[in-house]
């Protein structure tokens, strides 16, 4: 019993870190103009006092308000995305005072929302409001700002471990978002749902919100709201995984399409979940592909260490199950090294085909494997160990008695060995024959792989991959619309100039002619 909650809280932290990392690291896309709102402040912070820090944070939030309003007016999601991206850096600086003062200066005195939000912040909040905040009330027209403030208070409550309050507030906010039904809210809504699910997860009540999430998912799909859709699918999968309901998770995956335009981080998570489902269903090739994508798409920094570790652990097992040995360098990476030690030992056992060592490692680290929910997957490796063992024997001996095979692999009996060898021959693990009467196994000579269709196949796979990469990158190119218009205008202007020039020259000529005539 005590095992389960500890594990989940650890995983949660990973997931959390993953989110924080995502906002920062990815999306260095085509933001050409004004990109230096948050980054320049970092060095200054150390010098400044608490008061100034507070003021800076408030200024930042206000700046976000402007972005949200702009986003709502211009129907351009990227402004909102930019504001949300800097939430993670803002998160560390959120204090009661910052929030209370922002709220005070954004709502009228008798506003319902103001009372509500301040109520959640506690009694401290009222004390920190300065009179000047209330004088300079700038009311914002758009509901985005309102939802954003709700979101900030939610994040604050989460950081302060005030889960019960958080659940209440998140319920209210989710309701608000659903009632408003504005497309410009999509990005914010995704965040709101994320924290909503988070509160329920921390309090261990995930099962309760499943219907709400499913409903919201349906609505998001109908509205083609990619951000919310991708977030919700991941939340639902996470929800199912929490209770080991892989069957349901699989059904969800097969009934939904993950939006193509989802952010890299949501995609990475989705791929990880997909990889796990497929691994459990023994579809290792598919699982391997998904996990590889998950590992590659996830931002490579220390913040996402948890996600990288989890994904890599699973990837190692799946690779082993496929009969491949993961690269040694993977286990040396500083972020992964420590977490992967048990997996490294398992890999070694599989590589050598040593059944005893495998059992020992399994027994020694069984608690870790259970905590990672990988135990049943690792159990399946047992027969891979045997397979590798048989392959090694078949490679080194051209003829070996079944008794020796049995001794080398630590099997129960000679009959067992005979069945196992026969099965490996059928499955194509080794190329050999058994002589039953004399009780030995004879290996056939190696076939030249270049006389088969195998190279052609591998070649095709690589070319197809390169071509797909090319096509995808062409598709992904984005051209700034404005400059195109500008260019066109410029060309037009230049042409005009040219035309007038030509005209002038012509006129000048005519004049000259006339002059000539007159002369």
């Amino acid at each position, binding site marked *: 019993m005590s*095992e389960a909650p500890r594990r989940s809280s650890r995983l949660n932290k990973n997931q959390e870190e993953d989110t924080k990392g995502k906002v920062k690291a990815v999306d260095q896309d085509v933001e050409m103009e004004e990109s230096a709102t948050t980054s320049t402040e970092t060095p200054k912070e150390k010098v400044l006092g608490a008061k100034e820090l507070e003021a800076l944070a408030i200024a930042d939030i206000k700046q976000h308000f402007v972005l949200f309003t702009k986003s709502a007016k211009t129907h351009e999601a990227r402004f909102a995305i930019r504001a949300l991206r800097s939430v993670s850096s803002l998160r560390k600086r959120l204090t009661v005072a910052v929030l209370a003062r922002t709220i005070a200066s954004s709502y009228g005195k008798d506003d319902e929302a103001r009372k509500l939000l301040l109520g959640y912040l506690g009694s401290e909040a009222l004390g920190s409001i300065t009179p000047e905040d209330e004088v300079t009330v700038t009311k914002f027209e758009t509901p985005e700002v309102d939802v954003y403030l709700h979101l900030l208070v939610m994040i604050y409550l989460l950081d302060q471990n005030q889960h019960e309050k958080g659940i209440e507030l998140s319920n209210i906010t989710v309701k608000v978002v659903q009632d408003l039904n504005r497309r410009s809210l999509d990005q914010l809504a995704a965040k709101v749902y994320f924290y909503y699910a988070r509160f329920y997860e921390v309090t261990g009540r995930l*099962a309760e919100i499943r219907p709400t999430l499913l409903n919201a998912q349906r609505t998001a799909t109908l509205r083609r709201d990619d951000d919310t859709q991708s977030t919700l699918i991941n939340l639902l999968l996470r929800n199912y995984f929490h*209770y*080991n*309901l*892989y*069957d349901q998770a*699989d059904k969800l995956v097969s009934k939904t399409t993950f939006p193509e335009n989802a952010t890299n981080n949501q995609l990475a998570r989705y791929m990880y979940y997909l990889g796990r489902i497929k691994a*459990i*269903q*023994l*579809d290792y090739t598919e699982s391997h592909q998904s996990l590889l994508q998950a590992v590659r798409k996830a931002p490579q920094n220390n913040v996402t260490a948890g996600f990288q570790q989890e994904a890599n652990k699973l990837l190692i097992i799946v690779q082993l199950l496929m009969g491949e040995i993961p690269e040694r360098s993977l286990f040396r990476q500083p972020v992964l090294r420590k977490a992967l030690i048990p997996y490294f030992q398992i890999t070694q056992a599989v590589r050598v085909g040593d059944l005893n060592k495998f059992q020992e490692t399994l027994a020694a680290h069984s608690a870790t494997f*259970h905590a990672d929910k990988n*135990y*049943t997957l690792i*159990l*399946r490796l*047992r*027969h891979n160990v*045997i397979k590798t063992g048989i392959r090694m024997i078949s490679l080194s001996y051209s003829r070996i008695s079944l008794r020796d095979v049995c001794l080398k692999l630590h*099997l*129960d*009996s000679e*009959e*067992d060995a*005979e*069945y*196992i*060898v*026969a*099965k*490996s*021959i*059928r499955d194509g693990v080794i190329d*050999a*024959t*058994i*002589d*039953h*009467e004399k009780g030995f196994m004879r290996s056939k000579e190696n076939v030249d792989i270049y006389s*088969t*269709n195998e190279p*052609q196949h591998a070649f*095709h796979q690589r*070319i*197809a991959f390169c*071509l797909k990469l*090319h*096509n995808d990158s062409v598709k992904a190119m984005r051209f700034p619309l404005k400059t195109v218009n500008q260019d066109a205008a410029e060309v037009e202007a230049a042409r005009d100039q040219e035309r007038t020039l030509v005209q002038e020259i012509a006129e000048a000529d005519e004049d000259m002619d006339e002059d000539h005539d007159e002369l």
Partner: protein
Amino acid sequence: MALTDIKTLAQELSKEYNAPNPDLAKCGQYLSKLKIALIELQYLTHEGKHNNIEELTLARDVLEIGAQWSVRTKDIPSFERYMAQLQTYYNDYSELPTSPLKYNLIGLNLLCLLSQNRISDFHTALETIESQELLNNPAIQHPIKLEQSLMEGSYNRVWSSRADVPSKEYLFFIDILMDTIRNEIASCSEKAYSSLPLKDAGTLLFFTNMEDILNFAKERNWKVNPVEQKAYFHSDADERISIPANQIIKQTMFYARDMDRIV
């Protein structure tokens, strides 16, 4: 039908079923009556909210007997239906006391999946079981060990596992499994041996009398040489490797089209 009637009916059913020589046809009649009654009370559709533990337990017990009864009458689809309905009672009603039959039935379900060679479903079902039970419960351990031996190819152990089944209902599925295994062994042998003495083939396939072996050999198209008492398997030497012309043409056209686009 009122609740009290259902209760008496359920009691009659369990009395009949647990009798030394239960009348299975009679049990079936009871069960279909009970199912209709439960549907009327919405216990099987889960539309209303039910919080009465006693009633929930009653519904669950009926379904459990139903599942076991299906195994006895060798009706696999019916067994799967009962199991699907029971899942809700096992997973979603946490306030319900754990049934003593729960793991036995889950184990049976695992074995049922295994006997139909639905390995991926088997593993998905395995994940929903708590790790404590996974390691220690004999009813669960049995199918797990069985699956492991099957994957490895230690068919000997599968055969001997017949002796230590957790309950007699397991035997039904293991017998189905034996047929699957025989075919597995046969297909392995065809690849692994060029010829095999009939007597040894009999031991490998767990047959005891010659007639069964000969019938089986006929089924699998083995050439039996009656003089030598040996079975010969067709070798795959005469298999020819064809050039996948069509596929290569398709691939090349695909490259040409894409190259054209790039240039």
